[in-house]
């Protein structure tokens, strides 16, 4: 069966499959790939895709939505419920400083990148911020650069994609687009 043809007449996968997908994604918490779902349910990839698409549609009026994150699928609450949830969990919204966001942006677009390249771009020492982001698992050491001193290079992690609801690094708008915008 080709992945491009929906395997069900009328394009509707059976309710049982949709329910199973919901249970799996709910239990996992973390994003699950289509391949994993197909293996576990012992169905074709196309079936999983049709099921996910139906599940996603079914979530339209719900408090949670299906999001494509870090190459997999994950349930997340809708943003409009954030205040109530924070109140229930008795938490403050997780904060990132402007410096942290800048370092993340530089690494996301330039990776793998050395600390001195980050410092140079930002015009300021980024050591402390870098360390915090490594500690939070949003960045990781990613080998050494082949130049004198062999400095460490840094890259973003899967946790970075999950935090910012990115399915992929290619999900980030390109810097070039921004340059064009500025010219207007």
């Amino acid at each position, binding site marked *: 069966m080709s992945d491009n043809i929906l395997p069900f007449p009328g394009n509707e996968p059976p309710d049982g499959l949709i329910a199973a997908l919901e249970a799996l994604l709910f*239990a996992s*918490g973390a994003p699950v790939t289509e391949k994993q779902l197909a293996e576990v349910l012992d169905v074709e990839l196309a079936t999983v895709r049709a099921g996910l698409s139906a599940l996603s549609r079914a979530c339209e009026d719900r408090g949670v939505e299906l999001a494509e994150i870090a190459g997999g699928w994950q349930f997340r609450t809708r943003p409009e419920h*954030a205040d109530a*949830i924070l109140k229930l969990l008795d938490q403050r919204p997780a904060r990132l400083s402007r410096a942290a*966001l800048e370092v993340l942006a530089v690494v996301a677009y330039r990776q793998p990148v050395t600390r001195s390249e980050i410092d140079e*771009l930002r015009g*300021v020492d980024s050591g402390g911020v870098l360390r915090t982001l490594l500690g939070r698992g949003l960045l*990781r*050491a990613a080998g050494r650069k082949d130049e004198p001193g062999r400095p460490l290079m840094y890259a973003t992690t899967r946790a970075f994609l999950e935090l910012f609801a990115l399915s992929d690094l290619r999900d980030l708008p390109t810097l070039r687009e921004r340059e064009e915008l500025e010219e207007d």
Partner: protein
Amino acid sequence: MSAPAQPEWLVQTEVFDGPLDLLLYLVRREGVDLRALPVARVADAYLAYLDKMRDLHLGVAGEYLVMAATLVWLKSLELLPRKPTLHEEEEEEGEDPREALARRLREYAQYREAADELDTRPRVGRDVFVRDPTEVEGEQRPVEAGIDAFGLLDLYYELITREAEPEPEYSVDTRTLSLEEACRFVLGTLSGGRGELSALLSVLPTRRERILTFVAVLEMVRLGWVGLEQDEHLGPVQVEGKVSADVDLSRVMGRVEAATA
């Protein structure tokens, strides 16, 4: 000089994150074009800003002064009459230093915008919430580290810098330390006796947990569950446990809820 009430712009200085950040702010305030940067005008605004900071005895970090020196030099280039041959020389020697600064600033502005854009994305823990992954045990499953090489180094560093002191008998699940647990940890460690506050806090791995535990100690002082003593100014602070760890901790939580409500 008497300390002035903080004027509005001063509050602004504190949020500048390096000279490029300040420069970009000034460029935008002056409403000039990043592609044809009027260096003299921007340099004047920058130097005036640093002067204000100095007048108020605010420490100006070295990187701001390096930028100031660069700007003064670039300004002098602009004021010198251009030799007709200069253009060709520049092409031989590479980029005009003024253009280099403008380019650097444009590049920085791009990443600033990218950072802003990241900030507007729905973020876990702020805008959206997920369920914690379900953990199961299994011998044959592949493993993942959950940390990177730096995390490994952090663990090694913790081990080699840990002083040869006996392990606290009370072990804490530090990942989920609540105020209530912090209280129980303190009371359990003291177990009715005395201990030094700094020693109590030093076994906790993160700053957040140390602060939380410090708050817990203050809260328990208020409740009369522990006493604090300091023999001399800046000397070590002794904590004395006055109740056992199985005290009813709901009073602690009640207070906190009331305080944050």
